[in-house]
């Protein structure tokens, strides 16, 4: 088969490596690296590339000014990279479970479920931030199960999305009750968080994302190579010995777990999962084991690029990343919905 080389280690081990995904993944890595450095470099104060390299590889002590600016910028970049990868992975898992190319944690109400649980936990019960992630996880999972159950057996692909959107509307209304209790400044902060914004990301947020991401991202990668049978549909999957019901439930749980810490730190980034998985499938085809890593990289790249652009292009105005992504997301959603329709 063309486009494939086999790595032979002795006689027993033959590792086929498909060239296209490998090339795509490595070029995405290069792009990510370049964007990260650009993100560190630009802002209201630009920093010379040499200074950044000195800060990254402390060959010599960098001056305190660079150090403090970097201290503000790196959590944001790390949060964008991990948050983007996690939301994108969650979107791809949901697309597999729902067998619907338009699924996305923001569109199915899962992010809103996490958000509602976090807001109510924080504002009404005054829980500590470390508890909030678990609460968000429970809220997101419960919403996912609710939406999937309500939309069970609905054949039309827009049906699931509409059910998710309706559930999301109810949850947003519940959040609004809490949101409007403070003044307009707090309302504006809630509002930009509710669209996803990296402005308020702190080093502890970044550390939390690193903690969750370093466990969940490898798990999603492993999981994605096991889910091929689900693409055939539940009957066929059961026919070849997989247990679709259990697998779907586990994947949904995983998807909710991926979203909860991101919602807690950054807010819901709607449409990111949809966009990233769509681009990834365009790049490497349909195999979940290959699409998943590409989806993660594309998600990380999009969120980082959107945040860096929103932070630097329109200075002194800062556009929250979530807003740029929603606007791009709506357009891509429409294009994807058009392509997803069966050809006549």
């Amino acid at each position, binding site marked *: 088969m063309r486009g494939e080389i086999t790595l032979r280690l002795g006689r027993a081990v033959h590792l086929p490596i498909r060239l296209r995904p490998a090339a795509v993944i490595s070029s995405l890595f290069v792009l990510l690296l370049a964007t990260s450095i650009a993100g560190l470099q630009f802002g209201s104060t630009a920093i010379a590339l040499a200074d950044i390299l000195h800060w990254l590889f402390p060959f010599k002590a960098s001056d305190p000014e660079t150090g403090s600016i970097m201290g503000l910028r790196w959590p944001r970049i790390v949060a964008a990279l991990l948050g983007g990868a996690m939301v994108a992975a969650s979107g791809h898992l949901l697309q597999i479970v729902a067998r619907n190319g338009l699924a996305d944690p923001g569109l199915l109400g899962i992010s809103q479920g996490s958000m509602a649980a976090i807001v109510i936990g924080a504002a009404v019960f005054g829980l500590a931030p470390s508890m909030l992630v678990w609460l968000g996880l429970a809220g997101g999972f419960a919403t996912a199960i609710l939406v999937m159950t*309500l939309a069970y*057996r*609905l*054949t*039309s692909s*827009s*049906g699931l*999305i*509409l*059910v998710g*959107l*309706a*559930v999301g*509307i*109810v949850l*947003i*209304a*519940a959040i*609004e*009750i809490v949101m*409007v*209790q403070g*003044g*307009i*400044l707090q*309302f*504006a902060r809630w*509002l*930009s968080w*509710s*669209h996803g914004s990296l402005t308020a990301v702190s080093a502890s947020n970044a550390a939390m994302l690193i903690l969750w991401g370093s466990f969940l991202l490898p798990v999603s990668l492993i999981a994605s190579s096991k889910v091929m049978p689900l693409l055939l549909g539940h009957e066929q999957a059961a026919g070849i010995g997989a247990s679709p019901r259990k697998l779907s439930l586990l994947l949904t749980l995983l998807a909710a777990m991926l979203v909860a810490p991101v919602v807690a730190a950054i807010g819901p980034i*709607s449409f990111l999962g949809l966009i990233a998985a769509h681009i990834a499938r365009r790049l490497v085809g349909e195999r979940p084991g290959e699409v998943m890593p590409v989806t993660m990289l594309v998600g990380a790249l999009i969120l980082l690029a959107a945040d860096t652009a929103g932070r630097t292009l329109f200075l002194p*105005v800062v*556009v*929250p990343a*979530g*807003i740029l992504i*929603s*606007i791009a997301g*709506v357009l891509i*959603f*429409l*294009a994807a*919905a*058009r392509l997803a*329709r069966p050809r006549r």
Partner: protein
Amino acid sequence: MKGLGLALLIVVLALLCGLHLAAGARFSSPALVFDALFHHDPRNYQHVVVVKQRLTRLVVAGYAGAVLAVSGLLLQKVLRNDLVSPSTLGINSGAVTFVVLGIYFLGLDGAALFWPALAGGIFAVGVTFLAASLVSQGGRDPLSLILGGTMTATLFSSATTFAISLDPDRFGNLMGWLVGDIGNFDYQPLTLLWPLGAFGIGMAIILCRALDLQTLGTEQAAALGADPQLIRYAALALAIPLAISAVCVVGPIGFVGLVAPHIARLLVGETGRIAMISCALIGAVIVVATDMLARTLFSPQLLHVGTVMALCGGVAFLAIVLTTLRRRMA
């Protein structure tokens, strides 16, 4: 049967109005409400509360409900789609975006905001139709119009959030309006806008018969002597300004326009002038009842009407989507 339903509605609305005037932080007895209305004593504080705070809210709530419900029914008839309403087509969010932009860039205020709101509503409907045609590729799937509308609403709400984040202080007294609220001074724009609402509802009642023909389908309607194109534009030209006039007064209150026509259909059927009038009454009943709930549910903490409406209306929207989908599968 139809007359009975209408009479029932009028009685319910009257009772609810009385209850609305009586309920609040301090319950006023029916006798007091009666006195406040008919033997008004400007030096009696309780009379002032009933007339200046509760009556004005009642009028605003009734107006917004009636106007949004009629707008929803017009849209549902002319597009032959049970799921459309001013909020699900994105009209509300388009209007909000343009109002916020109008305040920010042009410094408009008061009733002058009607014009940017109208422009926003029309623009949003255009975007929704465009989005729906992209999704459906010319098929007549009722869901794709709603999907297009929701996407449009997402787009506009992002733009609104962005505009507010530019300078939150400037929108300080707009917070309630942004989620939909009936304030004590909302009757002021209403004094300018009510003729539009009255005219719109009147025209809707006159156009009713032609619209009912329209629901048979374009060909049949044309065969029976109606001009489908003209009726369609007339109905849209009525429905959008009607919804906008409510948005200008109370903010984007969703789902009245979606739910009221469905209740009217259950009570008095789908066609005829009585259905249109009932729909307006039902809309008024819904918003008045929601306003009362918002004021009393968590008192002394006040909720916003728009929020309570989104909670209940979102559930109703979900139910309507599910029944539409199930019916289609059966």
